[in-house]
């Protein structure tokens, strides 16, 4: 389903308007967007911001778009502070992306919600060398 199918003023569980994000992402060009999730580029640090929800219905498509977006050199920074839900298929997609990075690159996750940190620990996905949880404060721009 395309982004044009969103109900007007759709408010995500995070409490912000997808409309606003949609307007921003349209100027910059979203890396990925569907009814439940928008992924936009951030400049400082260079990376991507996730807003909305990832589950089995969009994790494959998200992974495909994000993999292309982070294909350039450098360590990708992912701002997940506005990711209000992410299931195991979504975490699996992030893990596989990190494991697939070439040339010793590292994926840095910013603002990973506490509950997702717990899910990663319980499911044996903590401590991957190419996936680093960044606890620094401040949002990406």
């Amino acid at each position, binding site marked *: 389903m395309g982004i044009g199918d969103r109900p007007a003023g759709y408010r995500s569980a995070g409490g912000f308007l997808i409309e606003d994000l949609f307007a921003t992402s349209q100027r910059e060009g979203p890396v990925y967007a569907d009814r439940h999730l928008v992924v936009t580029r951030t400049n400082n640090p260079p990376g991507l911001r996730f807003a909305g*929800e990832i*589950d089995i219905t969009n994790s494959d498509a998200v992974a495909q778009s994000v993999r292309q977006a982070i294909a350039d050199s450098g360590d990708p920074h992912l701002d997940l502070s506005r990711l209000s*839900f992410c299931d195991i*298929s979504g975490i699996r997609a992030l893990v596989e992306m990190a494991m697939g990075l070439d040339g010793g690159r590292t994926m840095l996750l910013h603002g990973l919600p506490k*509950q997702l940190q717990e899910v990663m620990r319980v499911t044996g996905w903590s401590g991957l060398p190419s996936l680093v949880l960044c606890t620094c404060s401040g949002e990406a721009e």
Partner: protein
Amino acid sequence: MSERFRHEALFYGDRTEFLAGTVPFITAGIAEREPVLVVESRQKIDLLRDALGGQAEAVLFADMAQVGANPARIIPAWQDFVSERGAEGRRLRGIGEPIWNGRTPDELVECQRHESLLNVAFGDGQPWWLLCPYDTSQLDDEVLHEALRSHEYVMDARSNSTDSTVFRGIEGSGAPFDRPMRDLAPGSRGIAYDSETLLQMRRAVARFATSAGCGADRAKQLVTAVNEVATNSIIHGEGQGTLRMWRDGDAVIAELHDTGRYRSPLADRARPGASPGDPRGLWLANHICDLVQIRTFEHGTVVRLHMKVDPLHQLHVVSSAAN
């Protein structure tokens, strides 16, 4: 001891018989330099420490109330013990008492299933000896009979071992579990879910959990667990299923019904490996929820997830009502 896993019930009637059965078992293990892990209640651990004196130093203890609150977490704990302490096929001993008077009826059934699944998890593996005490003064005859079905051997308080003539065997222990679940009050309408409505289903779970008294964290955890089971329905259960929810005592119960079948009897308690593709949903559900009940029928699977509402939240409700 035998050259394979030995799963043995110990029937005891009082504290003296408990010690008469367990202490010689432990000290014989220590004498053979076998690692020994005792998973018992705090009271029984204190009792054993006193009886063992200095020898208690050589024994590992763990609180069954923590390890086995959800009985599906006990097999992974034994697997950790065997893999960490039993290198190169070293023999080990364990004592585990998962069933006591005070388990809820749902917990009891899942503990009994756990006792059978131990045979599946370890039956073909390295030799170690697990002794499971059963308090004959507190437990019903049916519970004791079921212990004879799930254990190959039974020991009395004089340390006499005999074969259980009604042991159901390793294969029988892993047979699809289709025992009917407890009847719950009618009233919860079924919510059909598929890939198109998964997000709305999550919203419905969050609303129900919150209105039933779960705090934000617990509600989110229940949403996560329900979503993983529903995802299994979507992938393996013809793409859809039905969800029902209840407030039951101090817990919320979410029941998911689909037409798929779990092939492995240990599917919900197999620790995920390093491969990202390994299944993790049921494992996660067992670590989030207070109890997970899985039933496999000829035409489908029913999963019940139990989540206790926050004790603090309940207190809060009481105090605000008093004001």
